[in-house]
């Protein structure tokens, strides 16, 4: 097969090596991959041109937008990517773009570390973008985007690049804290809530992705119009924010995680708004009812621009009319409802109860089982793992990986549910806050806590979160369903030796090892 592209940034990567054919496994065509490389090369050129200067806010914003655009399942549209490249060139002057082929063809360990930096800042850019939409920025985070991009374009060695890899994790912690502040100051502190999986009869709109502001704007524009709103995938935790759940027509959650959308949206009598990833190439049976906004784009799909007039989505909902009768949907384990909203504030409001339960032996272990979901059949590992966790353990979860088990009732310990959804992937910040608070309460380090991390990854936000955990010195993380193709054997050895990272094996064996 002739090499037409090179992309290995996601977990689905062909043959756990690289997507090099006419399209990636994500559905991205080879020409789109080439344009994404050109955009990244232009951003590196811009970072070089900005070095030693004081970039303007608009320069930082363009860098954040450009990086976010190249995250998996965000933008499949050559036209919008080309437009972005032009905007970058307009401010980078005569600077020569970096040729990404130099990176893809360099020494595999250097390539591996530069890839960790690049994919990490792509993920971090998504969080910075959401915070920016709510009016929150951080100078240090912004400056680091330029520093990291420049580093990718510079000559580098394993020794010079490793500190930058870990710095991605350090800065991402600040970026997730920024987004946590933006979300909670704008929409209030999340509180636990039960979310029905029932779709009421009549017109409705499904909102997917992570952008709470888009959801809020749509809720405002659909008020008193006889249209109900349902979250999808990573938008589920929106139900926990007081300033969003106050809208009576925010009714429930539709469907499961992103990889099931081709089945779940087939023939759906309602429009679907994608505010961020993960968009899969829509099937003909529903492409007419898919809408994108912000950096998400797909050829032939209607796009809601920055004016944020959702009238086309609203009209489509009214035209399609929704279901004629209430329709009960189910989670993948047959559950009729799910819970969310166990952010760090909610969990830590019960800190005394938790500490006492640990001291009395009622809680013997905590597991953080979360991350991205995906298409590989082996991901049922996470369902089985959670099913097997002992009854005296608590399972914290986050991101869309939770749809593998969030409809199960695991019972309670001392009035606390055994399964607690911390929120979206960026709410890994909240899980870290819980770990830090518990470590403080017990006068130990996070690694000394009876807390195990069993993570699933798919796209680049998982990369920056993993680097944050490594920056914090968290050890013995179990990672699956497969290890990243961009981690070379030598770099993997480094991660194993220094951080004890291990691939998942079987739920039974991993549980036994983690509970030792």
């Amino acid at each position, binding site marked *: *097969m002739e090499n037409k592209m090179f992309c290995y940034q996601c977990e689905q990567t062909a043959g756990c090596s690289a997507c090099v054919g006419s399209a990636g496994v994500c*559905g991205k065509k080879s020409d789109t991959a080439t344009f994404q490389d050109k955009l990244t090369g232009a951003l590196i050129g811009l970072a070089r041109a900005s070095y030693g200067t004081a970039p303007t806010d608009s320069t930082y914003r363009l860098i954040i937008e450009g990086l976010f655009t190249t995250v998996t399942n965000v933008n499949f549209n050559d036209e919008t990517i080309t437009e972005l490249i032009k905007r970058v060139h307009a401010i980078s002057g005569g600077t020569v773009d970096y040729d990404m082929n130099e990176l893809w063809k360099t020494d595999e360990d250097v390539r591996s570390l530069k890839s960790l930096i690049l994919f990490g800042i792509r993920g971090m850019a998504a969080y910075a973008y959401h915070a920016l939409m709510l009016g929150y920025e951080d100078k240090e985070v912004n400056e680091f985007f330029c520093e990291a991009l420049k580093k990718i374009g510079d000559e580098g060695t394993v020794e010079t690049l490793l500190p930058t890899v870990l710095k991605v994790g350090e800065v991402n912690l600040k970026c997730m804290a920024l987004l946590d502040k933006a979300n909670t100051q704008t929409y209030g502190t999340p509180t636990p809530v039960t979310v029905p999986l029932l779709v009421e009869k009549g017109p409705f709109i499904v909102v997917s992705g992570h952008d709470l502001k888009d959801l809020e704007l749509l809720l405002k524009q659909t008020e008193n119009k006889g249209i109900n709103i349902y979250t999808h995938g990573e938008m589920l935790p929106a139900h926990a924010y007081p300033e969003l759940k106050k809208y009576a027509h925010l009714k429930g959650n539709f469907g499961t995680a992103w990889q099931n959308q081709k*089945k779940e949206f087939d023939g759906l009598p309602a429009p679907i708004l994608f505010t961020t990833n993960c968009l899969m190439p829509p099937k003909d049976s529903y492409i007419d009812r898919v809408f994108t906004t912000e950096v998400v784009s797909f050829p032939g799909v209607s796009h809601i621009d920055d004016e944020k007039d959702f009238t086309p989505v609203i009209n489509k909902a009214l035209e399609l009319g929704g279901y004629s009768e209430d329709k009960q949907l189910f989670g993948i384990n047959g559950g009729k409802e799910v819970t969310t909203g166990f952010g760090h504030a909610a969990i830590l409001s019960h800190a005394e109860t938790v500490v006492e339960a640990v001291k009395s032996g009622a809680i013997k272990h905590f597991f953080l089982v979360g991350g991205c979901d995906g298409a590989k*059949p*082996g991901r049922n590992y996470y369902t089985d793992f959670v099913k097997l966790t002992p009854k005296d353990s608590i399972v914290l979860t986050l991101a869309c990986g939770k749809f593998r088990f969030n409809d199960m009732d695991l019972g309670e310990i001392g009035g606390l549910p055994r399964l607690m959804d911390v929120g979206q992937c960026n709410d890994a910040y909240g899980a870290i806050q819980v770990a830090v608070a518990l470590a403080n309460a017990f006068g130990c380090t996070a690694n000394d806590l009876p807390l195990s991390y069993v993570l699933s990854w798919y796209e680049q936000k998982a990369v920056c979160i993993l680097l944050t955990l490594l920056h914090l010195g968290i050890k013995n993380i179990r990672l699956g369903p497969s290890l990243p193709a961009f981690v070379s054997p030598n770099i993997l050895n480094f991660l194993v030796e220094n951080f004890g990272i291990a691939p998942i094996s079987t739920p039974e064996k991993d549980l036994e090892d983690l509970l030792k």
Partner: protein
Amino acid sequence: MKAKVNEECIGCGLCVSIAEDVFRMNDEGLAEAYGEVTEENKEAVLEAADSCPVAAIEIE
């Protein structure tokens, strides 16, 4: 029902991971259909066809 993988295949292996008793990778690193589609595996084969990123699986 018969499954066939056409020349659009990019060798990602997704179909093999979904329906391994019908699809396998050949020496060129591309997928091929080798097993019979049965009542038991029919759903997995349809899912593999639906999931193929380049729509290279033809169902006859």
